[in-house]
């Protein structure tokens, strides 16, 4: 299969089609709306489920296999904002604060993109390290912290950095991911078995519902595209490609499997739209959220979902071949 066929095959999965349906519904100005509590409920479920899965897998992973990928992931997260800020300030003419805000989003991760990618690999019967969900948690935080620190060297940064760090670390996505991981780690495979019908069996179906809502939310954001300008749109497509290659390379150096490399590529390529926005909003109040959110939600997320995931997998295969 060439890249186009891969994209096509990916496009025909219910997960991606549900996203497209959500987009279409907003375009048709349908009154279809997700109840707010359903959105929150699905988010709680998905984050806890992915944590549990990772935790169970960690419970049978020797520490010796884990430390290299973990360190590599942390390093990647901490480094990404540096060049993102530089590019956005120098080439994109963004203020330091706006550049830092956007960099925090692109250095952090989108758990939903990760879920869609692992769902894609599962369907393609490609194996990967069971501890990948733990890496999601590891990659989520450092970029946000680094970006906020870099912004503070600039003038316009107000608000407390410590408060923002608190906000990220105790934010619901980290608490559920890390909490789920610990529960899975402690109770192990047999302990989790009785709850597997909910947390494993329904996982992909719940993802379909969640992506339907993501499509609705993204659709409502599409109008903001003209406000962010061509540079940021290009940034939202090009940087994921660069980051994916980096992620795959780092995974390769850390001795991970091909599937794990594809997933780390996806993680690096993805941009946060849950943890980062909330933290940045508090720590960098003068940053314009329209820039960062529209780029990550209306450009990078759909790009990764439809084109990126199969592409990065293909890239991983070539690099590993």
């Amino acid at each position: 299969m060439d890249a186009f066929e891969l994209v096509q095959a990916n496009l025909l999965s219910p997960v991606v089609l549900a996203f497209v349906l959500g987009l279409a519904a907003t375009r048709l100005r349908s009154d279809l709306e997700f109840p707010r509590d359903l959105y929150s409920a699905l988010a709680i479920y998905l984050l806890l489920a992915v944590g549990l899965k990772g935790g169970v897998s960690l419970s049978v992973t020797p520490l010796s296999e884990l430390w290299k990928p973990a360190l590599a992931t942390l390093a990647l997260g901490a480094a990404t904002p540096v060049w993102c800020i530089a590019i956005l300030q120098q080439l994109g003419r963004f203020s330091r604060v706006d550049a830092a805000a956007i960099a925090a989003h692109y250095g952090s991760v989108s758990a939903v993109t990760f879920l869609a990618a692992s769902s894609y690999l599962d369907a393609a019967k490609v194996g990967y390290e069971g501890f990948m969900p733990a890496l999601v948690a590891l990659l989520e935080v450092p970029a946000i912290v680094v970006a906020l620190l870099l912004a503070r060297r600039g003038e316009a940064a107000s608000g407390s950095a410590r408060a923002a760090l608190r906000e990220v670390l105790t934010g619901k996505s980290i608490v559920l991911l890390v909490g789920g991981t610990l529960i899975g780690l402690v109770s192990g495979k047999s302990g989790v078995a009785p709850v597997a019908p909910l947390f494993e069996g329904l996982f992909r179906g719940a993802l379909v519902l969640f992506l339907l809502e993501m499509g609705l939310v993204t659709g409502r954001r599409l109008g903001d595209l003209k406000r962010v300008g061509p540079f940021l749109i290009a940034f939202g497509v090009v940087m994921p490609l660069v980051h994916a290659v980096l992620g795959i390379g780092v995974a390769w150096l850390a001795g991970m499997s091909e599937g794990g490399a594809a997933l780390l590529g996806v993680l690096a390529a993805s941009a946060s739209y849950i943890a980062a926005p909330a933290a940045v909003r508090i720590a960098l109040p003068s940053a314009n959220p329209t820039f960062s959110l529209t780029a990550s939600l209306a450009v990078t997320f759909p790009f990764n979902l439809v084109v990126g995931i199969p592409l990065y997998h293909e890239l991983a295969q070539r690099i590993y071949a």
Partner: protein
Amino acid sequence: MQTVPLKRVTIVAEAVLERHLTADLERLGARGWTVLEARGSGSRGVRADQVAGANVQIETLVQPATAERIVEHVARQYFDNYAVIVYVDTVEVVRGDKYA
């Protein structure tokens, strides 16, 4: 029934600010508040929630001086960067001593 006039300060803000605002209220002397979930549209419209337009409407009954302090604080602290409005009206309350 004997009532006393108090100020009701109403703040509509993007949901991410709820905890910050209620902490502010407490610090500025409000003895209570009520939070309603809302959605809305305004001249700014920027907000950090990806669930578009998720707002909270916070209402607090306070003495006029406290109302003044709250309005000033909200305006100074949040107006520049956040989707927030604040306004005040007068209501008649029973047992006014309950409110600071």
